């Protein structure tokens, strides 16, 4: 492809992988936060939900920081345009993540403000879980930009359309399904909360399927931004694969195989990000006015990208190793002794 070099192409893929890693990992803990007030009735059940993500949520969130950093480091115009163009939405996500982080650490020590912390955990999970999908819908459908790449539409409200709302809801449902499958395989079994999560995951996944089909129809026949024709076959294959994997997750959930239900749910999240990447390539932000932000016009110098690739080759194996350690240390279902920490 014209204007795409070895390293800039590689970094498009790496940014997609980081987003996928984030969508899978923070996906289940954001989802757990969205389900928190509905699924956890008693104080103990609330503690189970929080404890189930306690040792891992912070590391999971670092995937977002890394994805943001990588976008800045590899394609600064894409980072600058989206973060400044979606300013108020970005700030809402930010405030959500802030109060959520603090609520997760403080709630256990603070019964007096328990209600406020519970609310912070829920709202702080809901805002990012909904708004990420809205942002994705916007970069796909396209935004108006000037020649400098600055968003020229109406702040915040200009970003809300039926299509971007639909992608927001699709994202939210993916997060909630991930949260339900996570809790179902992490909570003590048998327990009320485990049963509730297990029961909830299947309708959530079925609604996800329906909304996915609706978003696909809207994307192809209503929004219809420029997509690379050569990748059409890949997109259809990925869409089909998404359906297959999600149906497999439903199947595992029905059979009560909680771990595999969670793993296949996670795989479906990965496939969905790949599908999104294949729908965008080689663009980062589509334009309804002005010029799209693409790999070719946004990529940093090959020299910088080469150094970042070297840093990644050192860092990524370490990161995967840490994740192995932490998930292994805290593997298996929670027991009573885990709630006293």
């Amino acid at each position, binding site marked *: 492809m014209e204007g795409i070099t070895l390293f800039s192409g590689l970094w498009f893929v790496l940014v997609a992988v980081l987003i996928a890693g984030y969508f899978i990992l923070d996906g289940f803990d954001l989802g757990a936060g969205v389900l928190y007030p509905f699924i956890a009735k008693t104080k103990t059940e609330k503690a189970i939900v929080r404890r189930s993500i306690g040792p891992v949520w912070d590391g999971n969130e*670092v995937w977002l920081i890394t994805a943001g950093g990588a976008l*800045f*480091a590899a394609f600064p115009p894409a980072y*600058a345009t989206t973060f400044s163009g979606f300013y*108020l939405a970005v700030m809402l996500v930010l405030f959500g993540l802030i109060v959520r*982080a603090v609520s997760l650490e403080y709630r256990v020590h603070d019964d007096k403000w328990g209600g406020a912390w519970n609310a912070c955990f829920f709202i702080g999970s809901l805002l990012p879980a909904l708004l990420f999908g809205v942002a994705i819908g916007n970069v796909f459908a396209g935004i108006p930009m000037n020649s400098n790449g600055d968003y020229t539409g109406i702040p915040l409200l200009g970003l809300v359309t039926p299509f971007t709302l639909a992608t927001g809801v699709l994202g939210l449902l993916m997060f909630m399904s991930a949260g339900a499958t996570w809790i179902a395989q992490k909570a003590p079994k048998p327990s009320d909360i485990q049963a509730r999560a297990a029961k909830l995951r299947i309708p959530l996944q079925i609604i996800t399927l329906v909304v996915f089909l609706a978003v696909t129809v809207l994307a192809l026949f209503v929004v219809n931004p420029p997509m690379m024709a050569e990748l059409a076959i890949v997109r259809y294959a990925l869409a089909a694969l998404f359906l297959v994997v999600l149906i497999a997750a439903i199947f595992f959930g029905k059979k009560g195989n909680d771990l595999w239900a969670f793993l296949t749910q996670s795989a479906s999240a990965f496939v969905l990000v790949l599908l999104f990447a294949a729908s965008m390539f080689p663009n980062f932000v589509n334009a309804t006015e002005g010029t799209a932000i693409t790999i070719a016009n946004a990529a940093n110098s090959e020299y910088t990208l080469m150094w970042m690739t070297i840093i990644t080759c050192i860092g990524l194996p370490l990161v995967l190793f840490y994740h192995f350690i*932490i998930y292994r240390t805290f593997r298996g279902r929670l027991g009573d002794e885990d709630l006293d920490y």
Partner: protein
Amino acid sequence: MDILSDVAVLSRIQFAATAAFHFFFVPLSIGLGLILAINETRYYKTRDPKDAAATKLWVKIFTATFVVGVATGITMEFAFGANWANYSRFVGDIFGAPLAAEALLSFFLESVFLGVLVFGRKKVSPKFFMVSAWLVWFASMLSALWILLANSWMQTPAGAELQGGRAVLVDFFAAALNPSLFARYTHTVNAVLIMGAFFAMSVAAWFFIKNRNEGFALKTMRIGATVAIVTSCLMLVFAHASGVVVANEQPTKMAMMEGAYETEASPLYLFGWVDEANGTTSGLKIPGATSFLATGDWNAALPGLNDLAQDPRYGGNFKPEELPVNLVFQTYHIMLAMYLLILLSAILAIIFSFGKGKIKDMKWLQRLLFIAPVFPFLAIQTGWITAEVGRQPWVVYPGTSSPAGVSQLTSDGISMSLSSVELLITLLLFLVVYTFLFVAWARMMSRFIKAGPLAEDEVVAELKGGE
């Protein structure tokens, strides 16, 4: 100029305020990370349940502080793209990489092993637990390196060229090891270790004052005093190195620090006042001392702002009477004054906490050390104001040895898509959310410290099954 409608001014206020808030929690958590790791190492050697109880208290204090630092740190990463889009486009080839590296190489390490510290006492071996404590601290020190690398590059750009209207990396090592990196990194991390040591001493002093947990208080005081005296003495070296770099690379900042409008042998003021309108500075001073510190020669002339404004490198971009000279002058001198109080407190603490531990009966010293964290706190905040206001009006400073053209005025770095209304909304939200965070954090600290380390039988019950 109406401040409330000026996007550049509002963006600066928002960045400065959120960075200052963030950098209250970061020094505390990096500093306390060291105290925590030292304490856990003691437990690893003694296996005294009292030491495990102390670790547990430090983990709680550390985590409650760390999490606010993490949460408010996301603000900083988002702010570059959100509020400083043109800056991000200009420096993106260089500035993004250290941020990405920080996340990849430091944040994952830190967050994963903090999970072990909070939840893992019963699940991992004592050695694994101790190593985790050191890894969390190491990761936070490494994280500071990446951020200081990025920040130092803004102060003293290197290894880059101006190509197509933006800074492009041409020499990785020259950019990474830019002229101010070493001095500014050591200066900063040393300051945050002082902060942690003073906080630990303050906690210890509180227990002395309340006549509680004397054993814990004395151990903590000794750890804190040891770290405090070592870092306070090292500070002389690192701070001096920082000053020399500023004098060599950032002459306008140096001139603002001592209120020097004329080119002459520069005095060191003990205190004073800058009359910005008339371009004069008055106060109590040691003649030639700043020149001596910067060059080794009492009579060396350092360039003043009036001459620098004529210098082609800086000229045309500022008028001496419009620079915030008094702010830089005052914050710099407050920092120096705070350092003297830090040094004095550290000396008193080390003398009276070792040996027989006379501090146990010295109420006045206990009270002094209880409030003493204010000194490093103010020194850190004012030091950063000196560093960042002192580089104005540039966001990327045209340093003496910097490549030609690789500089940007702060007002050119903003996001053009933002309106002042959006900024006023988010400023208000930050005010509300950050006030809430601070109150919540302070409550948590007071609660943890008042509860103190667990009693011995509780600790034994806690540890059961862990080994």
